């Protein structure tokens, strides 16, 4: 089966501003792909192109083999926008009914009950949206995105309005979706969240992907620390394979070695290095 999402030489200009500049990446079936980047980096433009809300200036985007924005693509897509609202006069259940009909879902009452259960809103099924808290509306938005069992879920800042308990629900949901082989393109500012759940991550800056890989591969090569009788020596660019040579050199210089360890950077370190490298 092909990729759930493909971006190929994707570019977007807003008059003189180049929001995307030749972006290439793929989201495989069942993969959870995280997009990281500062405000204005082009993340939202990218996901909006994927949903057909924004037209690219060049390149192409595909959703499950269909050009992004077409009915065929949208039929396989679930989308949670960063800024969204549902009509306040609808109840939670009615929002889902509307989206079931619009997406030709035949899930009926059972699908709605399952989705509301999944995001812990079962007891609010008959509550009007206008009476819900922001966090409840955000969770309802996620349930709405899951209507019709989409093959690709595009989530733009899904946890931005959630408290820690709500975030945990979404993390558990993402893990479950991974188990169901649903592909997810996750756009988030929360590095720890991306680090916890994503299979692969891309860091996007000024419309370009500057770093891409698994969270482990991005964190790798993060240096060696050696505790000696004269203090801790740092070798920030060293990798694990270089440890014997480093130890030999220190011993030859007369140092006594007490402990050797590789240091692991967090995704936040990687992200900040990438951002500072591009903007500093």
């Amino acid at each position, binding site marked *: 089966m092909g990729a759930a999402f493909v971006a190929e030489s994707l570019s977007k200009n807003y008059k003189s501003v180049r929001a995307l500049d030749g972006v290439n990446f793929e989201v495989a079936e069942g993969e959870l792909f995280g997009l990281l980047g500062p405000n204005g980096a082009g993340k939202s433009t990218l996901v*909006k192109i994927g*949903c*057909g*809300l*924004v*037209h690219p200036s060049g390149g192409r985007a595909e959703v499950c083999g269909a050009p992004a924005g077409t*009915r*065929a693509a*949208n*039929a396989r*897509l679930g*989308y949670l*926008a960063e*800024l*969204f*609202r*549902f*009509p306040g*006069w609808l109840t939670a259940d009615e929002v889902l009914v*509307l*989206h079931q*009909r*619009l*997406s*030709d879902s035949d899930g009926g009452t059972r699908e709605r009950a399952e989705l509301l259960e999944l995001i812990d809103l079962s007891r609010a099924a008959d509550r009007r949206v206008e009476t819900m808290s922001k966090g409840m509306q955000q969770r309802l*938005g996620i349930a*709405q995105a899951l209507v019709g069992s989409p093959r690709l879920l595009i989530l733009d800042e899904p946890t931005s309005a959630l408290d820690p308990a709500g975030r945990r629900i979404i993390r558990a949901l993402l893990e479950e979706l991974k188990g169901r082989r649903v592909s997810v393109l996750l756009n988030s500012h929360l590095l720890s969240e991306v680090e916890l759940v994503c299979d692969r991550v891309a860091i996007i800056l000024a419309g370009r992907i500057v770093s891409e890989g698994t969270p482990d591969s991005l964190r790798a090569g993060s240096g060696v620390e050696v505790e000696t009788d004269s203090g801790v020596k740092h070798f920030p660019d060293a990798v694990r394979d270089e440890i014997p040579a480093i130890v030999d050199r220190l011993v030859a210089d007369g140092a006594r070695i007490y402990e050797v360890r590789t240091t692991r950077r967090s995704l936040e370190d990687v992200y900040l290095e990438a951002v500072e490298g591009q903007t500093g």
Partner: protein
Amino acid sequence: MKVLLLARYVLVECSRRRVFIVVPILSAAFLGLYWFAVARVFATSEFSSVPGPFDERLVVASTMLGLGLFGSFFLGVVLIVFLTFTVARGDAEQGLLQPVVVRPLGRRTFLIGRFLGAATVSMLYVILLFACCVLITRGISGWSPDNVVQPALELGAAVVIVGALTLLGSVFLATIANGVTALMLFGTGLVAGLIGQIGEALNSPTLENISRVMSWALPFEALYQSALTSLTEGISGLSGFLIRLGPFGGAQEASPGLYPWTIGYLAAVGLLTIWFFRRRDL
């Protein structure tokens, strides 16, 4: 049919949103005021019991019904502007549009559905309001126009055209700007109609031409004038002449091409709206 689904949601919205409670209240206030005005005019006027050169009761009753038709038109326009002025850009800025448009229905279906819903509600509303005015006038004066269906449908069509123009504006303009533009366009059409009436009274071809051009450009005005004309088309002689001198007399007869033009105009505005909306980044 997703078009009908979306249209039905506009009807549900009208039945549920608190702001729409104002519509029946203000409509009842308008009808109450209209009833009071007609009742007072007929109660206080001293109509001659001897047949004169013109029928005073007929002139008063038809002029008052013309006023009722204008009031219905105005309220119908306010309603359809309110139902359509945020549909594209306004709703996109609020985030209401994105979850719906991303579904497999296409932007064209979305627009047609929303417009169909707004047009149905507004047409029914304006026709109902006008029918109430006819009944009030008949109940008090004993007069009702020979032709009621044609002016009612023309009034409905006029309101739909204002809605179509507002929908087109909603693709480009932010909410308030679009609402203001739509109402100013409506006002411009009314002024053009008055210029035509003045031109007719003063026998000024220049003023009449200005009005004619504006009526083609904004055919809701021509339809409104045609509705006024239809109301009094059975009244001849001095009575008819006096009625047509007034602001609600419908002095300007519609061109035979008005209906085809209206259909073509609506289609062109609709296609333009869809064309621009499909190209817009949301």
